C-alpha cells in the first residue's frame, strides 16, 4: 500500500497539473475560449465531427492551427529542459547545474544559428536538421565546461557556474557576431534565439517530437545510474555501474534534448533548475521518479510561464524567457544560499 501511495500519487498530481496547464494555456489569448467549449472542440476533432457545433467556426482555426501547436511546443520544450536539467544535476552532483547556467543552451543556440546562417533550407527537411546542429554545439559546450570546471574528481559549485558563465558568454558573443553578419531574411529566422519566442505552426512540433520522445525516454531509464552516481564515481563503479559509459551516454542524451528545446523555442533559462528542485524537495532524490516527474512538471511550468508572458502585456506577447528568468533568478539565489546545508541534495 505504501508503494502505491509513494509512486501513484505524485504521478497523478503532476498529470492533473499538466492537463490544467494545457487547457489554461490554450484557452487564454486575444480571444478567450471557455474551457468547456475547448474540450468540445477537442472531442469533435477526436470523433471526427460527430458533435453539434455550437461555437464560432474561427475558434477551431485559432485552436488547432495556432494555440495548440504553440502549447505542444511549450510543453515539450519545458519537459526537455527540466529533464535534462535534472540529468545534469545528477551527473555533476551539483544542485545548480541547469542547461542555461552551464552554457549548454547557449552552445546549442550557437550551433543552430551557425547552421541557419549558412543558407539553411526553410522547409520541413531543414527544420529536421536544425536540432542536429544545435546538438553538436551543445555537446562541445558541455564537454568544454565540464573539463574547465573539474577539480580532481569533483565538479565544485563555483567552478561549474564560472565556467558555464564564461563559456556561455563566449558562445553568445559568437552567436551575435554570426547574426550581425547575416542578411535580413536569415536574421528574422534566427531572431527567436535572442528573445526566446518560438517558431509557429505544427512544423517545429513535428520536427522536435521524435528527438524529444527518444531523448526523454532514455533519460527516464537513466534514473538508477544517476542514483548510483550520487555516491561518487568510485562507489558507483564498485556497486557495478560502468561509470564512464553511463556518463557519456547521459551527457549525450541530455545535450540532445536541450539542443532540441533550444533549436525550436530559443534559449529559455531556469526551467531546468527550478522544476527538478521543487520535485526533489517534495518527492525526494530518487532519480527513477525525479526524471519522469520533472518531464511532467517541466511541461506544466513552461505552459504557465508562457501563459503569463502572453497575458501580462496583452495583446503584445513577452518572450517567455523573460518570465522564467524573473521567477528563476531569485530562486537560483535562494538555492545558492542554502546549498551548503542542503539535506535534499
Amino acid at each position, binding site marked *: 500500500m505504501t508503494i502505491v501511495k509513494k509512486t501513484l500519487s505524485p504521478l497523478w498530481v503532476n498529470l492533473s497539473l499538466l492537463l490544467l496547464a494545457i487547457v489554461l494555456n490554450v484557452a487564454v489569448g486575444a480571444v478567450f475560449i471557455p474551457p468547456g467549449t475547448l474540450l468540445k472542440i477537442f472531442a469533435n476533432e477526436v470523433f471526427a465531427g460527430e458533435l453539434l457545433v455550437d461555437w464560432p467556426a474561427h475558434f477551431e482555426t485559432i485552436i488547432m492551427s495556432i494555440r495548440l501547436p504553440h502549447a505542444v511546443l511549450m510543453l515539450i520544450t519545458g519537459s526537455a529542459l527540466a529533464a535534462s536539467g535534472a540529468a545534469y544535476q545528477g551527473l555533476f552532483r551539483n544542485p545548480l547545474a541547469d542547461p542555461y547556467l552551464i552554457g549548454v543552451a547557449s552552445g546549442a543556440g550557437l550551433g543552430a544559428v551557425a547552421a541557419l546562417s549558412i543558407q539553411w533550407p526553410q522547409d520541413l527537411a531543414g527544420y529536421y536538421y536544425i536540432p542536429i546542429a544545435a546538438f553538436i554545439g551543445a555537446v562541445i559546450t558541455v564537454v568544454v565546461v565540464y573539463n574547465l570546471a573539474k577539480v580532481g574528481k569533483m565538479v565544485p559549485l563555483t567552478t561549474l557556474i564560472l565556467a558555464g558563465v564564461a563559456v556561455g558568454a563566449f558562445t553568445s558573443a559568437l552567436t551575435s557576431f554570426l547574426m550581425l553578419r547575416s542578411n535580413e531574411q536569415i536574421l528574422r529566422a534566427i531572431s527567436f534565439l535572442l528573445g526566446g519566442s518560438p517558431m509557429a505552426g505544427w512544423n517545429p512540433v513535428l520536427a522536435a517530437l521524435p528527438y524529444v520522445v527518444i531523448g526523454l525516454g532514455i533519460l527516464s531509464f537513466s534514473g*538508477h545510474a544517476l542514483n*548510483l552516481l550520487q*555516491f*561518487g564515481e*568510485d562507489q558507483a563503479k*564498485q*556497486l557495478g555501474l560502468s561509470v564512464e559509459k553511463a556518463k557519456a551516454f547521459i551527457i549525450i542524451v541530455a545535450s540532445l534534448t536541450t539542443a532540441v528545446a533550444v533549436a525550436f523555442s530559443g534559449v529559455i533559462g531556469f526551467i531546468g533548475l527550478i522544476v527538478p528542485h521543487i520535485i526533489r524537495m517534495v518527492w525526494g532524490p530518487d532519480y*527513477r521518479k525525479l526524471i519522469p516527474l520533472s518531464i511532467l512538471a517541466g511541461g506544466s511550468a513552461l505552459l504557465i510561464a508562457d501563459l503569463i508572458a502572453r497575458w501580462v502585456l496583452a495583446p503584445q506577447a513577452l518572450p517567455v524567457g523573460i518570465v522564467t528568468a524573473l521567477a528563476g533568478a531569485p530562486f537560483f539565489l535562494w538555492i545558492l544560499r542554502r546549498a551548503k546545508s542542503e*539535506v535534499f541534495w
Partner: protein
Amino acid sequence: MALIGPNGAGKTTLIRGISGILDCIKGSITYEGVDLLKLAPIDRARILAVVPQSRALGGAFTVEQTVMMGRTAHMNWLGKPGEGDEEIVWASLEKTNTTGLADRRIAELSGGEQQRVLLARALAQDTPLLLLDEPTNHLDLKHRSTILSLVAKLAKENNLAVLMAIHDLNLVSIYSERVVLLVDGKVKALGKSEDVLTTELISDAYQTQIKVISHPDYRVPIILPDQELD
C-alpha cells in the same frame, strides 16, 4: 585478514586497485580462476563488495534506498528491485542492526551509523569477497568493537573472505586471523597476527619504538608505544 602499515604505505591504494577503480594496475587479481580486473564492473560487483572510507555522499537518500543500491549488480537495467532483493536488503539491515534507521536520510546519521549502513550495502551485494577501507576511523571505542566483531562473525557465518585496511593494531590482533604488513607499497610480512605483530617488525615498519605485551584474557599480542617521557 587485516591490512596494516604506516600512513602512505599504500593500503587504500591497494584496496582501490583490487576493487577495479584504478586502471593503471599491473598484474592480475584472480578469484576462482577469473581475473577480477578484466571483468565488467557489474560482473565484478557480484564477486567483490567494498566498504569505502569516504562518507557523506548521497546524503539525501534514505538508508533503505542506499542499501538497495547494493543490489545493483543483481537487478535488471531499470534498477527495479524484485522480491528477493527486498529480502536480502532487510536481512542486511538486520545483520548490521540498522533496521530502525531504514527511513532516515544518510546525512542525518552519525559516523558510526553511516559506517554500519555502508557495511549493510556491501552485504546486500551478496559477494564471497569483502574489502573494507579503515572501517573504524572516526568511530568511538564501542562502535569499533561492534563493527569489527560483526565483520568477524559474518566472515565466519557466511564464509566471506575479508580484507580490511586498518590502523589500530590492537584491534587487528584481537579480531583478525591473518595480517599483511605493507611498507612503501611492498608486502613486508604476511602471516598469523602473532607472527607479524612483533616488536621487531612493527618498530621497523612504523619507525618508532614499541613494546609488545600479551593480552591478559585472550593471550594475543598487544602493542604499546615505548618512548622515553621527558
